[in-house]
C-alpha cells in the first residue's frame, strides 16, 4: 500500500524448480531456453535440473523473459520480498505428485501455517501475496514438498 518506492525493484523468477529425475509435468519448465535467449543481462541459465533459473543479482526486471516463456511460468516479484513458489502445477494431489517430486500438491499446509493469509492455494497451486506477506518463512518450513523458496537461502525445508 502507499506510494510505491524504489525498494520495489522487480525481479523475475521461474515458478518451477524441476525434479531430480525426468519429470512429466505439463505445467513446468521444459528447458526450451527461450528466456535465456532473450535475456540481455545473462541473468537466466538452465540449471542442473534442466529448468531455467534466475540470478536475482543480475536481473533488472525488464520482463523480457516473462513475455518469452511459452509456458507462462516466469513471473515478477519484488526483489526485496524473499519468499516465492517454484511450481506451477495445477493438478490434484496424486497427479501432481506423480508429475514431479518437487510439485505443489495443493495440500494447503502453507495456507494453514501462514500467520497473515499471504500464502494461499489458488487454482491448485500455492501462491504468496506480497502485500500481506510478513516474511517469516512459515510457508517454507511447513511445505512438505519443498516448493516454496527463500531467495536468501536461509530458511529451507528441513530435510533437503
Amino acid at each position, binding site marked *: 500500500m502507499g506510494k510505491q*518506492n524504489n525498494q520495489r525493484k522487480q525481479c523475475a523468477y521461474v515458478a518451477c524448480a524441476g525434479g531430480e529425475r525426468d519429470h512429466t509435468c505439463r505445467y513446468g519448465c521444459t528447458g526450451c531456453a527461450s528466456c535465456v535467449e532473450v535475456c540481455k543481462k545473462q541473468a537466466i541459465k538452465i540449471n542442473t535440473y534442466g529448468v531455467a533459473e534466475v540470478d536475482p543479482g543480475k536481473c533488472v526486471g525488464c520482463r523480457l523473459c516473462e513475455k518469452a516463456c511459452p509456458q507462462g511460468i516466469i513471473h515478477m516479484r519484488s526483489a526485496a520480498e524473499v519468499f516465492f513458489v517454484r511450481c506451477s502445477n495445477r493438478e490434484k494431489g496424486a497427479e501432481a505428485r506423480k508429475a514431479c517430486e518437487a510439485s505443489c500438491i495443493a495440500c494447503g499446509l502453507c495456507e494453514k501455517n501462514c500467520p497473515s493469509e499471504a500464502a494461499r492455494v489458488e487454482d491448485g497451486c500455492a501462491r504468496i501475496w506480497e502485500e500481506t506477506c510478513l516474511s517469516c518463512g512459515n510457508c517454507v518450513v511447513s511445505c512438505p514438498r519443498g516448493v516454496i523458496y527463500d531467495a536468501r537461502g536461509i530458511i529451507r525445508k528441513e530435510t533437503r
Partner: protein
Amino acid sequence: MYKFYVNDQFYQVEGNGKLLPFLRDVCKCKSVKDGCSEGACGTCHVLVDKTAVKACIPTLSMMDGRRILTIEGFSKEDRELYAYAFAEAGAVQCGFCIPGMVICAKGLLDVNGNPTREEIAYALRNNICRCTGYKKIIDAVELAAMLKREGGKIPQKEFTWRLGERVHRVDAREKTLGYGEYVDDMEADGMIYAGAVRSQYPRARVLSIDTEAAKNLAGVIAVYTAKDIPGSVKVGHLVHDWDTMIPEGECTRYLGDAIAIVAAETPEILEKAKKLVRVSYEELPFVSSPYEAMKEDAPLVHEKGNLLAHKHVARGNAKEAIANAEYVYTEKFHTPYTEHAFLEPECAIGMPYEDGVLVYSTDQGTYDTQKECAMMLGLPKEKVRVVNKLVGGGFGGKEDVTVQHQAALVAWLSKKPVKVKLSRQESILVHPKRHPMDMEFTVGCDKDGRIQGVMATVIADTGAYASLGGPVLERACTHAAGPYNYQNFEIDGKAYYTNNPPAGAFRGFGVTQTCFCMEMMLTKLAEMVGISPWEIRYRNAIRPGQELPNGQIVDASTGLAETLEAVKEIFERHPYAGIACAMKNAGVGVGIPDFGRAILAVVDGKLHIRSGASCIGQGLGTVLVQMVVETTGLKREQIVYEGANTINAPDSGTTSGSRQTLITGEAVRRAGMLFNQDRAQHTLEELEGKEYYGEYLAKTDPLGADVPNPVSHVAYGYATQVCILDEEGRIEKIVAAHDVGRAVNPLSVEGQIEGGVVMSMGYALTEEYALKDCKPLSKFGTLGLFRAHQVPDVESIIVEKPGLSVAGGAIGIGEITSIPTAPAIAGAYYRYDGKYRTSLPLADTPYSRKKREA
C-alpha cells in the same frame, strides 16, 4: 551436529530446535523478544549473515555455518548510536518491538548508508509496533544513518529535565538495547511452567475433569482444578464474576475459561500434559450477541441475568428540544470488537515469598493484581506482593488478571517459582477487548447549526465477564454528548453479557464508539444547515466558563476552540478533508475516590520516586522525574525512578482513564513540596533515610449528583483531528491538534498522538477481530494492524492552555489521541465519494480487505 556463531561465540549443537528459544534460553540473548512465536510480529528479528530474519521460524539446522548477530553482539559504537538515536527521536514507548526494529535498521544501514524515509519504512515493514505509529522509529533510523555518515560521533545533550523539555525517556536505553527486563526475560532457579486447559465450548457444563493421565506424565508437577483454590474461585476487577477455573458442575462462559491449570518442569511437557487432561462437557446453547442475550428465554451467561449494566444519563429536556429544532437527523451506527494487540503477550512469574507469594507481572495496576490474587488465595492482601516489570503495552487490555492469579496459585500450592505465559493466540482469546456497540442517535439543531438536543441509545456486547464493562458503558454514555455547549441530553445504554470473549477497557474507554456517532451526526447536520463541518463544530465548541451537557462548568484550560483554529486552514485547503472533535476525561471521576499517591525517599544520597502507578509504555517514569525536578530543583542524576510495586510504593490506582500524569503527577509534586521544606535546612545527605509522602484526591461528584453543576471529572482533554485524502482516496496526512493543558514532555506527547492516531486508523479502516460462534478467527497477522510502510504522515499540534491548578497543568493524553480519528477519516471519505458510512471498519476504501482474487 550444527555449527554456527552467535555474536562471535562459536556454538556446536547436537539436537535441532527453533532458533528463538536457543538464543533466549541458551545464549541468554534476551534482547530477542518473543512476541508471538508464529512469525507475525517481528520482535524476534536477528541478523543472520547480515540479513534480518525472524528467529521464531528457522531451526538450528538452518543456521549451520552461519553467523548470527543480536544486539548483545553489537559493537560499542553501534550500541551507542542506536541507543542515542532512538532516545533522541522519542521512538521508544513500551519498547517491546524496539530491539527487532534496531536489528532491521542495522540490516538496512549496513548496506545503505543514506536511505530515504520510504526505504526505512520498507525495511521495517515486517516489524509491528502498536505504540508509536512508526513515525518516530523512522525518525530514529534516519538520525542513526545521519550520525553514522558523519563519523558516528554521538552528541552530548544536556537537559534541565524541567517540565516542557523534550528529554530522553528514562527507559529508552534499556529498551532499545534490549537489556531492560520484561517478565518473560526473568529467570529463577528451579522455575516451573504452568498454563491453562481452556474450555472447548463457549457454553457448556463441566461434568468431570480427569487429570490422572496428565499427572502421570513424567515432568508434570501438578494439575490443579477449582477445588484446589484456597480462597474465592471468582475474581474480577470491579465485579467479582470471573472464575479462576470453572468448577465441576458449573458452566463455562467463553472459550478462554480455564478448566484446569497444569504445572510442569518445561514448557514442552506442559503442552503435552495439557492435552492429557480429559474434560467431559454437556454442551449448552450459547449467546453470541446482545440481541440474543436480551431475549426473555435467552440462556443465562451468569445466573443473575444477562444485563450487566444499564446507564441512563439525562439533563434538560432533549425530547422537547429536538421537537422544536430546525433540523433533526437520526441515524444508527455500529462499531466492532478491537483487539489491543500489545506486542508483549501476558506473562507472570509467581514465587513463594516469606509467608505469602511474590508475583512479577506486566499489568496496569499492581494493587489491582494484589487484591485479586489475595482474594483468590484467601490471604490478607499484604501477603501477596506484586512487582511490575517493564510492561510491553497495555492500552486497557492488561487491567484484568489473566495470568497473574494463575501464577500466584501455582506458586502458593507448589511452593516453586513458576512462569505462566500466554501464547499469542491465547492472548487474543483471553483478555478483554474493546466493546462492540450498536448506537442510535437523534440530534436537533437550530438554523445556524447550534445543537439544541441529543437523544441516543447504546447497546454494548460486554462478552463473558464484567471486566470494566460497566464504567466503559458509562463513559460511552456521558461522553456521547461531545465537547459542545448545549443543555438537553438524554442517553440510555445497556451492556449485555454474551458468550463472546469479554470486553473491557480499551484506549478511549467507550468514547471511541459514541464519538464516532456524534461526530458523524454533526457532519450530516452541517450539510443540512449549509455550513462547513469545521464551522458547525466551532459554533458549538465548549469554551471556558460554559456548561457541558453534563452540567459541569469547564475551566480556563479548555482549549477545544484553539484546536479547531489550529487546523482551520489545512481543513479548508483540502477538498477531501474530514474533521472530528473529541473530549476525554483525565481521571476516573464521577464521585469515585481517585487517589494519587507517591513516596519520595532519600536513599544513598538520591531521591527515589516510589509509586504504585504502572508505566505501560506511555512514559510515566519520565513524567514523574520531570515533576520532581520541576518541584525540587534537584538534578536528574540525583533522582531514581523505581517501578510500580506493592512492596515499597503506595497504591496510586490503575493506569486507566488517562489519569497517571495528572493524578500521580500531582501526588509526586506534593511529596516534592514536603521534601523542599526539609531541604531548605538540610543537604540531601543529611536527609538520608527520610521519606516524603504525597497524596492527591481527585474529588468529583457522582453521576446524577443533586447539585446544579456537578464536577464529573477534574480535567478534560480536547482535540480536533483532520484527515486528508489524496485523489486516489488514500490518506495523505492526518493532522491532530490536542489541548493538553501543559505538555510535560512534548516529545512523548507527540509519540502518544502519532501512536493513538495510527491505532485508530486501524480501527477505522482495516482492523478486524472476527468471531464465529463466539470463537475468535483472527490471528495476530490477520488483525489488520497497520505496518510501517503503510502509514501516512501524522502531524501533531500541541495546544497548551493554563488553567488546571494541579500537576503543573498537565492533562493526560493517553486515550484522546485515538478518539476523533475514525470519524475524521469517515468524514473525509464522505466528502471524497459521497458515501455516508455508519459502520466501522469503513467499507469500500482502498484500505478495505481485498477478497480472494484469481
